[in-house]
């Protein structure tokens, strides 16, 4: 196969497509475009080992220079600003236009921001540079407020606490990671953070950041309280990076709308956090923000570019490391699911649990400091939709 493949986004999804294409026999041109100045790097360690300083920044590189060289790809540093799907060209900042036969879009996410002004001392975390800026700022911070207790917010709170900062974690939900774990197991995350001295301010929305002389002085809550802080990290979710695709002809609906083979249009595929595709069982569109989905979907897309007709039907998986606790979830916990312990009990710091829906479906296998158990419990998952 000698067609010209253009990959927009050189993080793990785009990189994996490139590698799988070469391995599968693609001998044509291969270009990867990304505005990030760093060679491809991994994001999960950014909120863990990079923030605490356990790893030097170079350790997050996904491949060695020799491995990247062996890929025989062209690396284009730039930001994609416009797609003309009919003419099959991508326009970059500065006006360069790149023509392609096959386009892979792997642009990932953009952190959501709070409304209102953003004083100095306000951080988001998606890129390596953002992680390094936060790491640089944390040692001098007196009080840290983390806005949003999802996976990322919880990991940042744990890292900041590990560095000895005074930390308040704020979220409108009843428990941290409520959407990922449900109320019971989310309650255990709350207990974990309390035990490590994090102040939790739950059940209250944040209305904005408060600044004094251009610097963060606190976080304003909907109930009128201001949480004092001189550093605020805003982790209130992300949106798919699709602004550049407006008017491109591609269908956008909280992500790039694809078919089950991850095709968005003739010759156009989407991979990773940015892609929305129909669940093979229900037909309902799903989008999965996780590290493992990016690679699994990349392998499907590469196979399809090479002429296969593979459907993407993953078991969602994510993990989170907070303090010395490792939480692993295979499947997807539903809002009203019951928790059933397979190994250990609700009182233990190490257990394996399943979550079950009202209909008796096993929706997720969860390991709490129990990686092996989580993996083997995955066999209990009911073959059924990954999202209701």
């Amino acid at each position, binding site marked *: 196969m000698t067609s010209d493949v253009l990959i927009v986004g050189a993080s*793990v999804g785009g990189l*994996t497509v490139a*590698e*799988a294409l070469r*391995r599968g026999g693609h001998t044509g041109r291969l270009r990867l475009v990304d505005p990030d100045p760093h060679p491809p790097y*991994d994001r*999960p360690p950014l909120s863990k080992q990079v923030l605490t300083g356990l790893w030097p920044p170079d*350790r997050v590189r*996904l*491949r060695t220079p020799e491995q990247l060289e062996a890929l025989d790809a062209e690396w284009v540093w730039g930001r994609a600003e416009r797609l003309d799907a009919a003419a099959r060209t991508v326009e970059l900042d500065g006006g360069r236009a790149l023509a392609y036969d096959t386009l892979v879009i792997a642009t990932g996410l953009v952190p959501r921001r709070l409304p209102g002004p953003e004083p100095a001392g306000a951080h988001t975390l998606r890129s390596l540079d953002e992680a390094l800026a936060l790491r640089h700022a944390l040692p001098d911070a007196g009080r840290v407020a983390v806005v949003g207790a999802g996976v990322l917010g919880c990991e940042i709170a744990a890292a900041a606490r590990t560095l000895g900062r005074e930390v308040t974690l704020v979220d409108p939900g009843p428990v941290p990671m409520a959407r990922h774990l449900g109320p019971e197991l989310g309650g255990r995350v709350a207990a974990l953070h309390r035990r490590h001295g994090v102040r939790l301010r739950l059940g209250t929305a944040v209305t904005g950041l408060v600044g004094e002389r251009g610097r963060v002085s606190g976080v304003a809550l909907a109930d009128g309280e201001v949480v004092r802080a001189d550093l605020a990290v805003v982790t209130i979710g992300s949106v798919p990076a699709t602004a550049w695709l407006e008017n491109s002809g591609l269908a956008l609906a909280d992500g790039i709308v694809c078919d089950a083979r991850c095709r968005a249009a003739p010759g156009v595929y989407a991979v990773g956090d940015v892609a929305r595709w129909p669940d093979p069982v229900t037909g309902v569109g799903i989008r999965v923000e996780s*590290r*493992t989905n990016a*690679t*699994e979907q990349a*392998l499907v897309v590469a196979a399809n570019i090479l002429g296969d007709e593979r459907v993407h039907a993953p078991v969602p*998986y994510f*993990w989170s*490391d907070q303090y010395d606790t*490792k939480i*692993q979830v295979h499947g997807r916990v539903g809002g009203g699911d019951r928790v059933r312990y397979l190994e250990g009990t609700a009182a233990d710091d190490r257990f394996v649990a399943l979550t079950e829906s009202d209909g008796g479906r096993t929706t997720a296998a969860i*390991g709490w400091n*129990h*990686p*092996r158990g*989580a*993996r083997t419990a995955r066999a209990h998952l009911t073959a059924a939709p990954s999202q209701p």
Partner: protein
Amino acid sequence: MKVIVDEERCVGGGQCVAAAPDVFDQRDDDGVVVLLDPAPPHERAAAVREAAMLCPAAAIVVVDT
């Protein structure tokens, strides 16, 4: 082929064990990868490459020999 694992990078997801159970296992306590066969035979090459690609920590390197 030769397989190299980086225990410090490993996040204990077990994707490698699922992909190539004859080559990878994981420790009971922390789930860190255990390399059962550092020089797997040719017939396992595809599964081992898949394991390396799926590893969520890029902790597995495959070297062609």
